[in-house]
């Protein structure tokens, strides 16, 4: 009798309840052990050190101001992102034109550019002598809170656009058609029918933009100047410890205090939004027929589209890509050959780039393996309705933890557990924790879209659980797996805050670029900085293009 193949053996084993429960338990245990608990427990371990900061009222006041600034920026920026991102998403989802594909791709630009590069690019655009300030004779936005808000608006914008475009593409247009046949002009139809129906996606977009703003560190460090929000405060404490301005206990106390406050308040806001959001009703009862009719048709619609595109180009795309300008200049000097030869600072640059890609690749593989079973648990409610919903909420925790706080907490936790914890492993764990929700969110939504009846049909035809996954679920979700994997990869590549918190020896490219911008070594000129950023943008675009080409068969999504 021929030996059964490995595939058949694994399929057969997947029917076994102990194996199945073991797999799901491992996925949940790994999530708690690697993603959820370390950031929280790291803070808990050093809890007592908070006493040190309470003895210094000035420091407490400074920390509270920083935390307040974080939330103020996040709340304002998320609201503005929603207000400006929704019309853009509407344009992308509803218009049929080749140019829309270009707009669609461009709207992802800020998301995939490493945050440190993004910060530098915005600084050049708004503040530099060759930027938009040149048109006005003086810097438009100097380093400080206004530039920080512009930055946070820019990198949260694609998150909002992507979520709302997905919602509009999934949304059944028949509801809007029904509204139009009943006499509602397009604006009324959108306001009273479409937006209430996609409200969960509006809430999700707001939460994602908010948490992106709260957690962002790398780019903020570049543009903040004297402005201090939570992540900047934590990094400044690290710098002050290095210069001897504060002691280790004070440093520990201040970062635990700031991290805990950021995490706790973020979670509180997050839970409040989730609980109150569904009860919040958009205004649909009152209509204003003649006014809404006026703003529905061509002139008003054209004006709206024009303003949307101006904001998109002038405040999102151009600032994001502005860093490539010095890169073009560098092409015509000896900077390019010097960069390619690896001399001077470029040796470290290329090493850091390789390190970044190895790190991102490793993190992606780990997240796909860990995240797939978790996505199924959440999507198919394997733990029952209540527990699965609770797990669904907990998966989002790393999204709202500021990346620098997450990094600090992770470093504390693992170093407390194992004295000389390898730095590379710490880096991997930090990046896994930060990027895990992106993959699981994307994957669980995709699994939910696969009808249970398809899986049932497969089972009645004799397929074992693993076979059902392999032959039905996987083919129908492969583009979401790809999309989720690419989000993880690019997010890891762009991650700066947690990276700064956990590393002292290893220097991924995001750390190198932050150094070049904030404390440039003597041999690093602006052309070099531009070229270094340009290489990173180029590689990021290549990844985005690969995503578009691979996803081409399924349309944009």
């Amino acid at each position, binding site marked *: 009798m021929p030996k059964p193949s490995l595939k058949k053996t694994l399929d057969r084993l997947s029917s076994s309840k102990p194996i199945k429960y073991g797999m799901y338990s491992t996925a949940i245990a790994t999530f708690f052990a690697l993603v959820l608990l370390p950031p929280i427990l790291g803070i808990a371990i050093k809890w007592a050190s908070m006493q040190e900061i309470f003895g210094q009222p000035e420091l407490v006041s400074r920390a509270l101001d920083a935390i307040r600034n974080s939330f103020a920026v996040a709340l304002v920026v998320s609201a503005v992102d929603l207000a400006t991102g929704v019309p853009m998403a509407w344009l992308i989802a509803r218009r049929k034109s080749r140019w829309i594909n270009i707009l669609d791709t461009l709207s992802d630009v800020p998301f995939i550019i490493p945050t440190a590069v993004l910060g530098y690019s915005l600084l050049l655009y708004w503040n530099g002598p060759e930027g938009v300030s040149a048109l006005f004779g003086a810097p438009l936005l100097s380093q400080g809170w206004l530039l920080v808000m512009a930055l946070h608006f820019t990198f949260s914008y694609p998150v909002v656009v992507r979520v709302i475009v997905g919602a509009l593409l999934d949304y059944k247009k028949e509801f809007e058609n029904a*509204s139009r046949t009943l006499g509602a002009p397009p604006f009324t139809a959108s306001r009273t029918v479409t937006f209430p129906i996609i409200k969960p996606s509006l809430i999700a977009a707001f939460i994602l933009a908010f948490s992106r703003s709260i957690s962002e560190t790398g780019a903020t460090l570049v543009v903040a100047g004297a402005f201090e929000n939570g992540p900047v405060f934590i990094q400044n404490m690290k710098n002050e410890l290095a210069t001897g301005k504060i002691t280790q206990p004070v440093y520990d106390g201040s970062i635990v205090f700031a991290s805990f406050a950021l995490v706790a308040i973020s979670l509180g806001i997050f839970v409040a939004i989730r609980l109150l959001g569904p009860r919040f009703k958009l205004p649909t009862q009152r209509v204003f*027929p003649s006014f809404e009719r006026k703003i529905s048709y061509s002139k008003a619609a054209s004006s709206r589209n024009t303003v949307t595109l101006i904001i998109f180009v002038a405040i999102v795309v151009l600032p994001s890509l502005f860093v490539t300008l010095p890169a073009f200049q560098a092409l015509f000097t000896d900077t390019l050959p010097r960069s390619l030869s690896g001399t001077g600072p470029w040796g470290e640059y290329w090493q850091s780039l390789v390190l970044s890609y190895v790190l991102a690749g490793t993190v992606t593989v780990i997240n796909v393996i860990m995240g797939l079973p978790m996505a199924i648990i959440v999507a198919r409610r394997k733990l029952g309705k209540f527990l699965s919903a609770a797990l669904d909420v907990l998966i989002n925790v790393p999204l709202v933890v500021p990346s620098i706080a997450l990094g600090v907490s992770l470093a504390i936790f693992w170093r407390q557990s194992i004295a000389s914890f390898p730095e590379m492993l710490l880096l991997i764990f930090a990046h896994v924790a930060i990027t895990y929700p992106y993959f699981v969110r994307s994957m669980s939504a995709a699994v939910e879209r696969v009808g249970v009846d398809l899986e049932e049909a497969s089972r009645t035809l004799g397929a074992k659980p693993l076979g059902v996954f392999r032959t039905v679920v996987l083919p129908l979700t492969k583009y979401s797996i790809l999309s989720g994997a690419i989000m993880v990869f690019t997010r890891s590549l762009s991650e700066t805050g947690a990276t700064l918190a956990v590393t002292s020896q290893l220097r991924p490219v995001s750390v190198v670029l932050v150094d070049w911008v904030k404390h440039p070594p003597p041999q690093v000129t602006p052309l070099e900085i531009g070229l270094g950023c340009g290489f990173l943008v180029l590689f990021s675009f290549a990844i985005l293009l690969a995503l578009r080409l691979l996803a081409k068969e399924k349309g944009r999504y």
Partner: protein
Amino acid sequence: MPDVRLVNVTKRYGKLVAVDNVSLHIQDKEYFSLLGPSGCGKTTLLRLIAGLIRPDEGEIYIGDKLVNDEPPEDRDIGFVFQTFALFPHMNAWNNVTYGPKVKGFDMKNAETIGHEVLEMVKLHERITSFPNELSGGMMQRIAVARALAAGAKLLLLDEPLGQLDAKVRNELRYDIRKMTKDLGLTAIHVTHDQSEAMAISDEIAVMKKGRIMQVGTPQELYMAPKSIFVAHFIGESNFLEGYVSDMDGSEVTVELRGGIQVKVIGEAEKIGEKVALAVRPEAFSMQKKARKDGNTMTGTVERVTFEGTNIRYEVRLENQDMIVIVKPSMIGEWCSVNERTSIGFPEDKAHLFKYPDAGLKEEISVE
């Protein structure tokens, strides 16, 4: 009250011609059905009238007004969707009063209309229910009420009963027709169910591959189909192939396979022309003794199916053609399997068609 005219209307999706040069006139207050197989263009035509899509060529008039450039909200229509399309975030009352509100009706007026239409569809007690709390039949009645409450004079229904079970479907179709007649509306109803169309329509347009094959009353379509497709799609028909052997005024002699000669009333081009005869199953007579007059053939009964009201016989003719005969079960003697029987049909109950170039199978195909 509007009539609806379509003049040479065409709609393409890339290379596919969904609606192919259609001209149609639907009278004021008429209950008109667009009937055809899936993919024939009937829903596309309805959506063109509604303004949800625009024609590539041709003109659409509602009343005397050319509406090609008018958006749906300005065409004064009510549309009932196959999927109901009830707004999930609004209860029945808010769904029904949505149209009057967005059109700027006075609030009191809107409420009065809302109550009236909900009484009409007998769902007044469910006004606070949300769509996910209603059955399919209830949702469809709310959808109809919503379309009526908007005050439109032209009601467009896109397979409104397609999602419902048979019993509810049979009840609701008459209710919808009655409501539109009581309100004096013009209605255009899309369906693929011929019994539904035949039961409630004043006139029906049969469509195939984007084209109108025939427009007529249910009786006209059934009794006098003008094409093989209509003869096959409406009701049931047996098709007998043969050649014209003689013509005498309107009486045409056709030689079927095996040399069987039959006479029919119809028009042929020339002797020797290949033709197809369509004969309804109920038009045949069966008797055990050989017939001597009229069109006669012999055959052997191969299958007998009792269908309650009728008996259905599958009979192999002497020339090996297979036909279906349907007889009332309460009248006459029954034949049994393997019994030889003499079969006839009246001259004027057969429909003579030129044999299609593409073949019979292709002509009656619904794809």
